[in-house]
């Protein structure tokens, strides 16, 4: 369940094609889930406090059935609706699970740590799982594999220990605000990066999954060191700065090849390891009836994801239109001036035009157009050069189209320094 967003992100390009949607439209598959999830978490936490087992079991049934509904969705609207129901089930599962874990481990803080570890595992496995399922089977399969979660219901029948008594005290909102801001920025790192790799650079879902797995691997490796550094403000600030810098570096990529995005992902991954567990720990802090607080902390992260998608997707979408016009113009110039026979150029222009129309506002793939035309004898090399030049032009434009959104994501992540600093002053 914690891997849901990263799994679904890898399937979005295929879903976009299936429902003939836009990036902005299809982003609601993620937005709707995270928004409803965040809204449903607090009521679910209150319910889970009273009846954790049934909350968890009912949540699993709802989540599994809604997952199956997502898999058979015939329209984008139905899919988004099913995702909303899935999110309600997911919120009940998460709230119930935290409460059950807390009663098993003794405290909500220990439960949250376990939950955090599970979250990192989900983050690490999600992209690879999403890529493999989408490429080997279909986008529907990512929802079908979530349905068997229903089989875990018997676990809810185990008798849990007594509920933890909260210590009371004043709630500090700063860690949650920081978590929300970092989550909003991280949306850029996951959602936008996958869209850039698949839609902009034309990577297959599996290739994209392999590339974006660098980030969770970095998180896991950095996590082993980060746990020794503690959760002091300098460590949290270092994490926020690393995330913001990684996102900014994604906004100024010198080229359109996979190796350019590895360094920024390592920074983001290390930043996650330095900041997210520490902020979660501080957010809980044992000061409040922690079940509700734990759900609030998770809700803050999902609100951040929603804010990230809602703010960043239009930024990217409007820039894509600008780049689209520019690349169409420069591509036309390259084709017009290419030293090929006029007949070949006209045929090629028409074939590319068909690909552009088929792409429906997205950046087109040129390979079908170029393979459908046979250049005149002796012009093979010039023909191949033109294809390379045009593809370079499209790749550069596609990469640049994402720049403002990545830089905006970096700015949002950097804002997390404000609540981190405020929290440090308050404690001092």
């Amino acid at each position, binding site marked *: 369940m914690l891997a849901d967003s990263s799994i679904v992100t890898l399937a979005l390009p295929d879903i976009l094609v299936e429902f003939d949607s836009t990036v902005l439209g299809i982003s609601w598959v993620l937005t709707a889930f995270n928004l409803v999830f965040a809204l449903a978490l607090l009521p679910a936490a209150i319910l889970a406090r009273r009846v954790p087992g049934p909350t968890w079991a009912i949540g699993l049934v709802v989540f599994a059935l809604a997952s199956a509904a997502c898999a058979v969705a015939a329209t984008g609207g139905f899919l988004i609706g099913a995702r909303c129901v899935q999110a309600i089930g997911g919120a009940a599962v998460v709230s119930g699970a935290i409460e059950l874990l807390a009663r098993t481990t003794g405290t909500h803080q220990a439960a949250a740590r376990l939950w955090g570890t599970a979250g990192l595992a989900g983050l690490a496995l999600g992209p690879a799982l999403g890529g493999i399922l989408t490429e080997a089977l279909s986008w529907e399969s990512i929802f079908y594999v979530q349905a068997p979660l229903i089989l875990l219901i018997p676990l809810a029948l185990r008798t849990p220990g007594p509920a933890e008594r909260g210590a009371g005290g004043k709630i500090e909102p700063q860690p949650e605000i920081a978590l929300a801001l970092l989550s909003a920025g991280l949306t850029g790192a996951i959602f936008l990066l996958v869209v850039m790799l698949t839609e902009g650079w034309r990577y297959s879902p599996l290739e994209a999954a392999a590339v974006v797995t660098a980030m969770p691997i970095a998180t896991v490796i950095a996590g082993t060191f980060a746990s020794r550094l503690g959760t002091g403000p300098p460590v949290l600030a270092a994490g926020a*700065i690393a995330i913001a810098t990684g996102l900014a570096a994604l906004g100024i990529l*010198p080229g359109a090849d996979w190796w350019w995005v590895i360094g920024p992902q390592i*920074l983001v991954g290390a930043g996650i390891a330095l900041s997210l567990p520490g902020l979660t720990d501080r957010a809980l802090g044992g000061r409040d009836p922690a079940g509700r607080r734990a759900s609030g902390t998770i809700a803050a992260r999902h609100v951040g994801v929603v804010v990230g998608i809602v703010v960043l997707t239009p930024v990217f979408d409007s820039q894509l239109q600008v780049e689209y016009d520019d690349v169409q*113009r420069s591509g036309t110039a390259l084709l017009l001036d290419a030293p090929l*026979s*006029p*007949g070949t150029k006209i045929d090629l222009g028409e074939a590319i035009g068909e690909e552009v129309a088929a792409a429906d506002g997205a950046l087109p793939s040129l390979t079908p157009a170029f393979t459908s035309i046979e250049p005149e004898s002796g012009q093979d090399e010039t023909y191949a050069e033109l294809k390379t030049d045009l593809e370079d032009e499209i790749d550069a434009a596609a990469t*640049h189209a994402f720049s403002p959104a990545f830089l905006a994501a970096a700015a949002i992540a950097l804002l997390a320094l404000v609540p981190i600093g405020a929290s440090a002053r308050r404690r001092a």
Partner: protein
Amino acid sequence: MRVLALTVAVCAAVLGTYLALGGADYKPSAVADPCEPREIDWPDGTELVLEQIGKSALDGAACELQVTREDLLIALADPETRADFLDERQISDSELEAALRGGLERAHDDAVEAGALSGIPEFLIAQVIEHAPLEVIVDIAQSETGQELAAKLAEFAGSETAQDAFGTAQEAIAQGQDVLEEGKETIEELEGLVD
């Protein structure tokens, strides 16, 4: 604090490297100003000459309409894109037609002056430029092959005009064949004398 200082240093190094490698320097490939004269090396072959005339005409029309030739060409791809282009830039159909015709006239004159265009193709193109409505000009410009283009040119010139033009050409060819025959006979006579 050491972690923070180390992170800041690593982050600065990564950003500095990406910036130094041109990460913030992206600019789309510039397209030429259509009002700037281009060096034209007139090619051999009617098809290539016609292509050059088309490109020069596009430059001329684009310059007059104050757009790039690429934008103009994309606009002429189909009626829908043309309507959007005219609407967006507040250009009327007659202004577009005048610009295209003016561009073609200048390109035609340049080709004739450079000796790249003559004979029947020159005549037919001159007729098209002078008389054809905008739709025909665009249709001819979208010909896929030289043969198709020639057929469209002949079709437009009208049967009477075309027949006159082809009749003159046929007469010239017949006269040329007579000359060749006479030359052949002369050569045979000379060969007989040598033997």
